């Protein structure tokens, strides 16, 4: 029995509000707090006290104000209109809020998540008498010019279609079909459905992750690749380029849909993302990037509880599009802010802290989140994937802190950003000795099939050269490079070409910001070819200084700029020139 009218605020401490002696709430239920109906969520219940975290500023709340339950857990509305939109952490559209309350966000703004007035060009995919089950597509509409929105029967529902509306203009809340379930109950299907954010959407079967997510970033695609449906962590202290790397991935990776969660980050950065994405043109479709992007912005000064929810809101939207059969990539920047939000709320609840004040359930929350990634067969038989790329901001740039360590356990790619590289403006500052990817085994067949066996061979050689260099550098740091024998100097010179000419990538250069895999392979080929030829000369006692004087090494460093992405034939000229110049050297 519910007696909502009797529930009133008892205590207030920051974003945490308590209600005394109430039996009407359930765990994780969404509630409205106070006269202004601030959104909150029940996070603890005892017979004396119900604890609620509030997703908005609590200034001005008074004990005695009403708390109303909604009877359902914190959920999001899923339907057309999500793409090309920007939401806060609990799926309130920020553009609509701006229209309503101006440049500063006021509290209790009740705006529905999706534009209810907008008419969509709906085509029905079912007819009366059709048997449908959870996940089946009953209607489609073009959500943006490049993405078709597919309305699916909610996972728990199945039955026979009773009636449908004709194709044509419909709004989000219009009933377009009626379904009769086994027990004979009628369900109206609109263009949208609701889903609790903390519950993963079901799939029919999980698949092995055998397709790479192609990012066009050489250090990632070549050395530390990630699969579609994979998980990656990008840890790095401030100023090491986490956000830039995330932006690059969001812009260029070959997912169909991008969900970008700005979790507790800078407001100006979010406005930059907004600016850039609307100007950027997707190379595949020729349409603005925003046509396939959803932004979730919960900047660091917005309420902390909503920051905690924003990650779940993002992943739920991602799963929804995956169910339609799309490949979705979600960028979470940064998961540390989310973990800190957990800590902050845990502290307000006076829970017993574990490591560094973080709650003991931090690892389980992190694993729950990352496990929602994957490649799968959906309920309707289509294939889709959710790839999670989470930035981590380790406190004090110390990778041994709890969030980084626990994230490492649950992700299979680890792209460690390095302060020293960032200081030298080597971007992306992904450290090649600390980073790793566990996807080689899954992805190598794809690389072999599509790029030939050499690709993997080249990668191995490049890796070995870098390893050799890092060992040699230990010596160089102590005694200088002059004393090294010529063959070791050659390793150092070649590794320099690899570092500066290959791993380092300029996000602002039109050809270098995205590099196709074939070009990556050709670049490796030319570098390794020069290395092989030069090593032959060195073993024939040609001094390394003479080889360097040919200028070939410097030429290769600049080849990433000099060879446009559509002129891969030029690589053969480079090979020819290496042959020519080195032959001249031997002749003299």
């Amino acid at each position: 029995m519910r007696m909502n009218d009797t529930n009133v605020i008892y205590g207030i401490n920051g974003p945490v509000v308590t209600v005394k002696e109430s039996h009407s709430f359930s765990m994780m239920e969404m509630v409205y707090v106070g006269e202004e109906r601030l959104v909150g969520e029940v996070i603890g219940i005892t017979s004396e006290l119900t604890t609620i975290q509030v997703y908005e500023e609590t200034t001005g709340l008074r004990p005695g104000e009403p708390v109303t339950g909604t009877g359902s857990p914190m959920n999001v509305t899923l339907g057309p209109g999500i793409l090309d939109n920007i939401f806060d952490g609990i799926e309130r559209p920020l553009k609509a809020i701006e229209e309503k309350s101006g440049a500063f966000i006021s509290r209790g703004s009740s705006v529905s998540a999706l534009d209810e007035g907008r008419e969509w060009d709906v085509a029905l995919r079912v007819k009366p008498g059709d048997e449908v089950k959870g996940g089946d597509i009953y209607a489609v509409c073009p959500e943006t010019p490049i993405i078709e929105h597919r309305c699916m029967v909610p996972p728990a529902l199945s039955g026979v279609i009773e009636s449908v509306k004709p194709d044509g203009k419909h709004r989000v809340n219009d009933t377009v079909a009626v379904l009769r379930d086994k027990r004979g109950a009628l369900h109206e299907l609109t263009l949208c459905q609701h889903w609790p954010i903390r519950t993963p959407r079901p799939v029919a079967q999980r698949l092995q992750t055998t397709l790479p997510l192609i990012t066009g970033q050489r250090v990632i695609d070549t050395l530390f690749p990630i699969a579609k449906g994979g998980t990656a962590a990008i840890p790095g202290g401030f100023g090491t380029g986490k956000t830039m790397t995330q932006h690059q991935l969001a812009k260029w990776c070959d997912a169909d849909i991008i969900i970008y969660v700005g979790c507790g980050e800078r407001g100006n950065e979010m406005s930059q993302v907004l600016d850039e994405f609307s100007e950027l043109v997707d190379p595949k479709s020729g349409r603005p990037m925003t046509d396939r992007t959803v932004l979730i912005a919960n900047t660091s000064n917005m309420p902390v509880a909503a920051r905690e929810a924003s990650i779940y809101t993002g992943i739920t939207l991602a799963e929804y599009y995956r169910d339609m059969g799309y490949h979705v990539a979600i960028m979470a920047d940064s998961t540390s802010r989310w973990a800190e939000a957990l800590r902050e709320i845990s502290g307000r609840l006076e829970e017993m802290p574990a490591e560094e004040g973080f709650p003991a359930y931090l690892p389980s929350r992190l694993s729950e989140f990352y496990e929602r990634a994957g490649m799968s067969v959906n309920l309707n038989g289509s294939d889709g994937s959710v790839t999670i790329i989470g930035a981590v901001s380790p406190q004090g740039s110390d990778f041994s802190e709890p969030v980084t360590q626990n994230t490492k356990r649950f992700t299979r790619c680890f792209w460690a950003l390095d302060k020293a590289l960032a200081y030298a403006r080597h971007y992306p500052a992904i450290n090649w000795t600390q980073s790793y990817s566990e996807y080689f085994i899954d992805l190598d067949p794809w690389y072999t099939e599509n790029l030939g066996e050499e690709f993997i061979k080249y990668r191995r050689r490049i890796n070995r050269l870098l390893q050799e260099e890092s060992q040699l550098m230990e010596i160089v740091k102590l005694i200088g490079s002059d004393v090294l024998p010529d063959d070791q100097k050659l390793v150092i010179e070649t590794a320099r070409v690899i570092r500066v000419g290959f791993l380092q990538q300029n996000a602002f250069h039109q050809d270098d910001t995205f590099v196709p895999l074939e070009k990556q392979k050709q670049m490796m080929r030319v570098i390794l070819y020069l290395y092989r030829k030069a090593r032959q000369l060195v073993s024939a006692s040609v001094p390394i200084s003479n080889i360097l004087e040919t200028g070939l090494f410097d030429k290769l460093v600049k080849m990433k700029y000099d060879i446009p992405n559509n002129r891969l034939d030029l690589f053969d000229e480079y090979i020819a020139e290496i042959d020519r110049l080195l032959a001249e050297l031997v002749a003299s």
Partner: protein
Amino acid sequence: MLIDYLGVREINGSLIVLDDVEGASFEEVVDIRLDDGTLRQGRVVQMEGSRVVIQVFEGTRGISLDNTRTRLKGHPMELALSPELLGRVFDGAGRPIDGLGDIYPVARANINGTPINPVSRVYPKNYINTGISTIDTLMTLIRGQKLPIFSGSGMKHNELAVQIARQARISDEGEEKFCIVFAAMGAKNDVAEYFRRSFDESGVLQKVVMFLNLSNDPIIERILTPRCALTAAEYLAFEQGMHVLVIMTDMTSYAEALREFSSSKGEIPGRKGFPGYLYSDLASLYERAGMVRGKSGSVTQIPILTMPNDDVTHPVPDLTGYITEGQIVLDRTLDSSGVYPPVSILPSLSRLMKDGIGEGYTRADHSALSNQLFASYAKVMDARSLASVIGEEELSPTDKKYIEFGKQFEQHFVSQGANENRAIGESLDLGWQLLSTLPREELDRVDDRLLDQYYHPDQKEA
């Protein structure tokens, strides 16, 4: 209906607890009148039924269980606002202390502010010319940015902040639209006086609003000081259309005040005893910088913080760095070798500069030049550490050139007079001149076209 509550139930540090309070609201302001007639202010920080915990700004000294009358004011902490703020001096809680009387408010605003909607923000692109080579060239300050100075005790951060405030020019607008809000949190009296005098000498005092919470002022007020300052700044920027530069010193004292307050509330501490919400709290200040669509003004922040023991991983600089858009780090070695401003190049950064420089803003070669300077200076550091092991004599000729470049760079580029105002073109040319002492093939961040234009190794040095 205003009720006075007699006495208190409990006193703990700067907190007092009242029982049986009716109609109080969270974060509401209260007046506390002592029997001896003194008036103190406080704020509701926690509520449980009719029990209310109040934080007393001026501290609880002299308060006993029954010598007070407490009155709820019915609204959260507000600041009176008017264009007359300019030229005035306030204490840390926003009360005038310059003897000119209360200001007549045109508007009042909650000092906690409200978050700017991310879609309403304008992405900052217009650079601010500070006349300081290192900053303009390598970590360009952008209008609407928050760019802190990470310093340590005894270094010349105050001088640097004053120089920035004095020389800062916005490229395309007149000076009348420019003003400064200065917030001192736990600053020494001398420091506050130094700022006041410097503003006076450069004739900008009438364009400055000061909020002073000196080191011997109540610590709890320190938590309000930056909020008052930013509320004033937001008013001047978004209501009066001015470009406001907010200087806040010292954020470390502020964070310590927050720690003291948190521990007196009995909260579970995080790193180094700072409360778990330090990040959110700092963000609620720093994020108030920016520009808003449809308003002509801007709020630019230069917070100054002293790193205890020069440790950049201390929670305050660490969390600050994660929120602000870059940082200017000062270096003790440079400082003691007499380089002013002692800006440590490599860890310093401006995140917003990439879109605010180059053609149309500064000069087309700016971005390439600054990348190259960073990269070359990083090599100087490698060469130096090598030299310290094997001696400078043993270095390769290239490394020797780097050592020489590093020396020249620090003496001519980083170092400049406290009153020296270099134009952006001048700084950029100087950078090219220095780079020209290095072999051309070492400059791998610059393309050939720019090198042809600017690389002149034969030219004599300045």
